[in-house]
C-alpha cells in the first residue's frame, strides 16, 4: 500500500473519481493553473483539461450556486473553498438552496464542498475557522471531517458518490504533517465513527485535527486505558458508536477545535447526557476553543486553540473524579 500525505490522499481521491466518472469535475478559485492555494488540485488541469478543472471568478455564492445547477442536470461538481472561512460568503446557497432541495421537491443535489479548515499556523481570525457546526445545524447537508490519509481519500470518494450535498472538512494542519498507508484504487469509507485507539477507563470523542492531539495527550496517562473515538462523520453522527463508547468507558471528554458554543462537541455531549446518562461515571468534560476569534500571534493562538496539554490536564482531572 503506497504511503502518502493527507493532502496527497485527497488529490488521489479526486483523480480516481475524475478518471472513473466523467460527470465529476472540480471548480474553485486558483485551482487549475495554480493547483489550488494548498496545491491539492495540482496536476489535475494537465490530465483533465480546463472544463473539468475550472478556475472560477472570485465568487463563493456563485461557486456553490452554479455547482447546484450543474448537479441537478447530471454533473458531479466538487467545489473548493480557498479557505473554509469563506463558506460564510455562500452560506445562503448552501443552507437554503442545496440543503433543503431534496426534502422540498425530491430533487437530489450531489455536490461536494471541500473546506480547508482549522488553525495552528498564525492564519489569524479569517484563515483558521472551523465552520462545521454552522453546517451541522442546516438540515440536508452531510458533514464529514477525516483525520487520516486513508479516511481522507475514502470519505472524499464516498462524498462524491453520495447523492446529497456533502461538506468535506480537510484540516490544513494535517495536509503535510500526517501521512499513512492509503489503499490504491477507489474505495469508500463509511460515514461512521472509528476507534482510533482502544481503551476502557475513559473515552475522548473528537474528529479532524484534534484526533492527533487527543492520541498524543492520552498516550501514556498514568497507565490509564483511554479510548479515542474519531467521529469521522458529523452528519450523519454515529450515535450508536458514541453510546457504546460511553457504556464501555463511563467517563467522557469531548474535544473540539471549533469555538465552544453550539459546537459539534456540544451536540455530542447533549446526546450522551440524554441517551447515555446511565453509563456516566462523571461529568462530560469539554475541551474546545473559547468563543473568541482565532488570534494571529503565536502566543495568543496557542492560548486559544486546544493544546495537547489542555486535553491531558482535563483527562487527568476526570480520571481522578
Amino acid at each position, binding site marked *: 500500500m503506497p504511503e502518502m500525505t493527507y493532502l496527497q490522499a485527497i488529490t488521489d481521491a479526486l483523480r480516481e473519481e475524475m478518471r472513473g466518472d466523467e460527470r465529476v469535475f472540480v471548480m474553485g478559485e486558483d485551482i487549475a493553473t495554480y493547483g489550488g492555494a494548498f496545491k491539492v488540485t495540482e496536476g489535475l488541469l494537465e490530465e483533465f483539461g480546463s472544463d473539468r478543472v475550472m478556475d472560477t471568478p472570485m465568487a463563493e455564492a456563485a461557486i456553490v450556486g452554479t455547482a447546484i445547477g*450543474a448537479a441537478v442536470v447530471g454533473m458531479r461538481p466538487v467545489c473548493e473553498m480557498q479557505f473554509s472561512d469563506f463558506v460564510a460568503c455562500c452560506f*445562503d*446557497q448552501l443552507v437554503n*438552496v442545496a440543503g433543503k432541495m431534496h426534502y*422540498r421537491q425530491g*430533487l437530489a443535489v450531489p455536490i461536494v464542498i471541500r473546506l480547508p479548515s482549522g488553525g495552528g499556523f498564525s492564519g489569524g481570525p479569517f484563515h483558521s475557522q472551523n465552520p462545521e457546526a454552522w453546517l451541522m445545524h442546516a438540515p440536508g447537508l452531510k458533514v464529514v471531517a477525516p483525520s487520516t490519509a486513508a479516511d481522507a481519500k475514502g470519505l472524499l470518494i464516498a462524498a462524491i458518490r453520495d447523492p446529497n450535498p456533502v461538506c468535506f472538512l480537510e484540516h490544513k494542519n494535517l495536509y503535510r504533517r500526517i501521512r499513512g498507508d492509503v489503499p490504491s484504487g477507489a474505495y469508500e469509507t463509511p460515514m461512521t465513527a472509528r476507534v482510533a485507539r482502544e481503551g476502557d477507563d475513559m473515552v475522548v470523542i473528537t474528529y479532524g485535527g484534534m484526533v492527533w492531539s487527543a492520541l498524543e495527550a492520552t498516550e501514556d496517562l498514568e497507565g490509564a486505558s483511554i479510548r479515542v473515538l474519531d467521529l469521522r462523520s458529523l452528519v450523519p453522527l454515529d450515535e450508536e458508536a458514541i453510546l457504546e463508547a460511553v457504556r464501555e468507558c463511563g467517563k467522557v471528554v469531548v474535544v473540539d477545535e471549533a469555538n465552544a458554543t453550539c459546537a459539534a462537541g456540544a451536540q455530542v455531549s447533549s446526546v450522551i447526557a440524554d441517551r447515555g446518562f446511565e453509563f456516566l461515571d462523571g461529568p462530560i468534560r469539554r475541551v474546545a476553543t473559547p468563543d473568541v476569534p482565532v488570534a494571529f500571534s503565536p502566543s495568543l493562538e496557542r492560548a486559544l486553540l486546544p493544546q495537547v496539554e489542555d486535553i491531558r490536564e482535563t483527562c487527568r482531572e476526570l480520571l481522578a473524579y
Partner: protein
Amino acid sequence: MAISTTTTAGGAGGDDPEARATAIAGEAPPAADADRLTIADRTGLLRRMLEMRGIEQRAMTLYRQGQVPGSFYDGFGQEAVSAGAAFAMAPEDRLCILHRDLAAHLIRGVEPERIFAQYMGRMSGLTDGRDGNVHFGDHRLGCVGMVSMLPDMMLVAVGMAMAFRMRGERRCALTWLGDGATSRGDCHEAMNWAGVQRLPVIFVLENNQYAYSTPTRLQYAVDPVERAAGYGFPGVSVDGNDVEAIFAATLEARERAIDGGGPTLIEAVTMRMHGHAAHDDMAYVPDELVDHWRGRDPIELEERRLVAIGVDVDSVRAEVAAELEQALARAREHPMPAASTAGDGVFCEGKAQALGDGLGPWSGYA
C-alpha cells in the same frame, strides 16, 4: 417587434423607471410573428394565460376561505411574461420559475389539478405539502422549484447552462427575476459568471415596478437592463404585457444561446396589478399607475388580436373555466400528507435523478 436595444430602451424614459415603463408599454402592440407562430400557437398562449389567471383567482378565493394555508402570491396582469418566455423553450431546456410565473409551470406540463393541491398543502407530486404556494417546480418536467431567497435561482440556472456548455449540448437554461432581486449580490455573481463564460442562459427581468412596497427608484438609479452591456451580453426591453413580443425576444435569445452567442437579459416591463401577496392592499401604489396598466391587460390584448383573425375566444374562455372547475374538484380529493411522513426525505437515499424534459408547446418544436 417591440424589442428595443438597451440604448433605445434607455431612451424610452431614461433613468426614471416608471416613465420608462409607461413609455415602452405605450408602444403599439406588435403584429404577430405570423410566419413563426401558428394560430394554434397563439391560441395556446392565450389559453395558458387564461388558465394562470383562472387558477390564481380561484386560489385567492380559497385562501380567503382558509383553504390555502400560509400566504398567497399571484401574477395578475403579468401572465404574458411567463407564458411568452416559457413557450419559446424546448423540452430539453431547463427552467427556474419564479413566483409570478404560473403560466410557465402550465406550459411545461404541470396540471392545474396538482397546482390547486399544492396551494392547499395536499399531496400533489410537486412538494406534497413540504413547501407551499409558488415554491414548487416539477423536476420531471425540467424545472427547479424556487427558494424564497431572491434571486438565488439565477445561479442555479447559470450552473445548468455551464453543464450544457461543458457537455457540448445545444440546450439553454432560463430563469426569471424581479426588479427588487436585481439589488442582491447573487444577481451580479450570476450575470458576471454567465458573461465571462458566455453561457447559454436567459435572464427574464420581470420589471413590475415594485418589490413588495418598494418602488424601483429606491432599488436602483439606472434601469438594470442597462447593466447587461457591462457584463458583455445584450440586454433588451420588451413590453411585458405583450405575450408574443416576449415569445419572440426569448426565441431570439435562445437561438443566440444555443449557437454559442452567450446570455441575454430580457427586461419585460409590466405592472404588478395585485398586492405583493393576498394580505397587501397596495395602498402605496398611485392609482394612475394602476389605471394606466389596467387598460393594457395582457390577456385582453392577445384576445383582441385573435378575435381579429377569427378565433372564438369565448369558447376558449369557457373551456378553461370548465377545465378548472373539474381540476379544483379533483384537487380537493387529494389527501393531506400523513403527519408520520414529516421527517422523510431530508436526504436522498437512492440514486440522484437529474431533471427530466418538459413539453415543447411551440409548433416549432413539434
